């Protein structure tokens, strides 16, 4: 429950005009990737999502002036995305930075313990996933 509370506090507002968690993930990806990595297909694969929600989120971000799209110089069938100046300004207000700052304020021993704990939780499957569908659990 505490983890859920921390996440809720991080994204304080769920109003539709606010930047949503998926949109933040896309801004972060585009903000730190090379131009050729910034295609909708690669972003969807990175986030483990189908194309439809990613396309919708990209449209919103472009409409809000946070990202630009232009034809992909490596593949005429797709577009590459980049952050606008406004997009970089938005990224500088990423709510996750507040969590980072809170973690950095922890004493070193607690910080190291937290790091190991969160890492273990991240790679431990939920009970109902253990022995689950082999196709979905197989790695590439």
């Amino acid at each position, binding site marked *: 429950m505490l983890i859920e509370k921390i996440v809720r506090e991080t994204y304080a507002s769920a109003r539709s005009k606010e930047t949503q968690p998926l949109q933040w*993930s896309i801004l972060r*990806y585009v903000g730190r990737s*090379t131009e*050729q*990595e910034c295609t909708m297909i*690669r972003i969807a*694969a*990175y*986030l*483990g999502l189908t194309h439809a929600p990613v396309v919708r989120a990209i449209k919103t971000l472009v409409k809000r002036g946070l990202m630009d799209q232009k034809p992909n110089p490596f593949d005429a069938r797709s577009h590459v995305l980049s952050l606008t100046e406004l997009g970089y300004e938005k990224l500088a207000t990423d709510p996750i930075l507040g969590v980072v700052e809170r973690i950095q304020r922890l004493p070193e021993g607690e910080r190291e313990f937290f*790091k190991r704990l*969160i*890492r273990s939780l*991240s*790679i431990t*499957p939920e009970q109902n*996933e253990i022995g*689950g569908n082999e196709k*979905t*659990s*197989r*790695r*590439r």
Partner: protein
Amino acid sequence: MKRLLVVDDDREFLALVCKFLEGSSYDCIKADTLDAAIKHVDGTKWFAGALVDFWIGEENAIPLLDVLHSLDPSLPVVLVSGGGGGLTLEKTQAIGEISGAMYFLQKPFRKAELVALLDQIT
């Protein structure tokens, strides 16, 4: 020549990466298991960087990342993944970052992407 540790259980991938780097300033040291990789980093022969696939056989690379980070926190480590294992690539990258792998390459990648990244970080 800069020694680059390349770790993946997929031997075709290992061969391809080393072929990508032929004629460059990198000398590929290949390992296809976690144990083999950890033996390479016993502290007697050091590396300019490491390219590590997150999934190695049925295991993940976290123990190797911890060894690399404990031996040299400033070593440039590139984590590589194509996904799977119930983890998104976003999550895999985040796990890598808190384990000291500050760079990430999403499979598949082009030779130019690999060389540009290595040239930038090593």
